[in-house]
């Protein structure tokens, strides 16, 4: 579903990403771990074609993202660390707007149902998004993925700043999406959530993918030691 082949990105002499290759399959949550500046967000930005790779290729559902940016984005829902919505529109209207940009026309009832399925309280749907907490906004992001029925989720530290309950709720939603066949690539600092939610973890350091393991083969302590050892290097 998601595939990176030898991706390299250099910013004015600084190598942000070096020869990165990874693959995320359907029904899989791949957690990218690493310190700030390790290259996690750069990887996600390359899949979104926000930036151009200096070499290598990123594929989404078999589509080369730099050759077919619009086509490839039809398969992606992106949830940044701080998902922002239009403050003057309600959650429902925001969802309708972004669904419309994807060419999807859903009626109000279907949109409400999706928001509720994404965990938003039914009475919150009509409130202005300016009154939403971060957790509520992230749920609108998940609702967007559900409504658009995209098979790829790119998440850039989506639980950062969320309280444990909201973070847990968010992880539940991700698992639900995964079980429905979504391929999720999530950049995160949250080792615990990565172990609990992910199927696979990849540790990045200085723009390189230095470790890749299935989460089932590691305990929480082993993951932490592994992460810290790469951080020290």
């Amino acid at each position, binding site marked *: 579903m998601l595939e990176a082949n030898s991706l390299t990105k250099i910013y004015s002499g600084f190598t942000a990403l070096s020869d990165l290759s990874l693959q995320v399959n359907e029904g899989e949550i791949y957690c990218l771990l690493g310190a700030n500046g390790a290259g996690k967000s750069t990887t996600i930005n390359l899949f979104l074609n926000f930036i151009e790779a200096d070499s290598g290729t990123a594929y989404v559902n078999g589509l080369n993202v730099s050759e077919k940016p*619009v086509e490839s984005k039809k398969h992606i829902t992106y949830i940044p660390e701080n998902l*922002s919505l*239009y403050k003057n529109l309600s959650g429902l209207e925001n969802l309708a707007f972004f669904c419309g940009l*994807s060419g999807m026309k859903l009626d109000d009832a279907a949109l409400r149902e999706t928001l509720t399925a994404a965990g938003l309280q039914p009475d919150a749907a009509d409130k202005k998004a300016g009154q939403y907490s971060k957790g509520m906004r992230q749920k609108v992001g998940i609702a967007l993925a559900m409504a658009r029925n995209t098979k790829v989720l790119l998440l850039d530290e989506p639980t950062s700043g969320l309280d444990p309950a909201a973070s847990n709720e968010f992880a539940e939603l991700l698992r639900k999406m995964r079980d429905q066949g979504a391929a999720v690539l999530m950049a995160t600092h949250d080792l615990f959530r990565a172990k609990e939610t992910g199927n696979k973890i990849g540790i990045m350091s200085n723009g390189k993918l230095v470790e890749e393991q299935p989460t089932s083969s590691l305990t929480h302590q082993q993951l932490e030691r592994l992460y810290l050892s790469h951080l020290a290097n």
Partner: protein
Amino acid sequence: MIRHILYYELKKSLADRWLWIVSIILIATTATGLYEGHRLTEARLNSLEFVRTQEANFYASQLERLKQKEAGEIEIENWWQDPANPLVLSAFGAAGKHVVIEPGPFSVLAAGQSDIFPFYGKVRLTASQPLRDNAFENPIHKLNGKFDLAFVLVWLLPLIVIALGYNLRSSERESGTLSLLQSMPVPVNTVLRAKIIYRYALISIITLSCLFGGLLLFGVPVFSLSGLGLAATVLLYLGFWFLLCYLINLTETSSAVNAVLLFGAWITLLLIVPSLLNTIANALHPVPSRAVWVTERRAIGQEATQKQDELVETYFANHPQEVPEEDIPDYLEIWNARLIRADYVRERQQQAQLAFEQPVQAQKALVNRLKYLSPPMLFQSYLEKLSGNNADRLRNLDHKMMAFQNEWNDFFVTRLQRLEYLTPEDFDQIPSP
């Protein structure tokens, strides 16, 4: 897709304050501009009505007196009081007729040059001159210009466009929605274009509604070709500024940089380019100072006075058929000399004026060619032309007065030379501009 974005732009703007603020500003400034234009036009019309009433009253009273004289009801003791005397009807007191430049049907649109050039003048046998109502106005008012509709449309409207369009992309980035927008399967430029189209349509509707509603209220014939032209030009002008906003938004700079760039463009196109063009025009075609012109006019007058006898002698030598009879009254002899002098002065002054008018015309031609560098200049000159208060039309007063002066003199001078008194029937033949 565009329709979808337009629909949500409308929803967003209805929930926001800016739509209401912009509407109030546009309505208030348009209303002020209309009021000012109407006030100036009314003042002109009142002036014209006043002088025409005076003129009509004068000739009506003279006709009445002439009829009374002929009926033997009154006796006229002095020649200068005789309503049949051509001099009394053409040169004395309130005699003379007014040549006017009427305000055009779209006059409320722009004060234009009407506060600088006179719009009526009185033609008499020897002393014709343009008259001005604005001679006593505080010059600071002229410096600041009028708050008319042209000012609102040419100067203020772009600021509103800039305020609405400077940060279409950067505000998305600064509020954090750009990344979500960029992740959608639609190019961000498509969203940007839709946002510009929405604002363009919205401002066009508000502006044209205020403008045409106001003009209709003041009885301006907006349902005409001129009205259609005005609407098209306003749309083009708005389109120019929105296009500029769109291009600046493509640069992906911050809101602050966009604002500075657009405001810079506003200053350049509205202030710097016109000033620069004036400087270039003045440098290439310098016009002698007004003091020189006034001095020259005086010199011509003094010269004519000094050699008046010589002028009269030469004139009658060249026009023997006009030599008056020996027994003509003294005043007629004096007036013959005055008329010959006035003809001489007029001819010499016209020649002298050419030396001043030529560089002015050359400047105008140059500015006319270069005004395409600045859409605001083009728009301003279009509005002034449509209002009928442009310099060309108002300057035409001089030519109209000169033409009527000839007609006036043709009618009266022959009668004067023959001392042919007017009858009540002749009053209908007195020329009018």
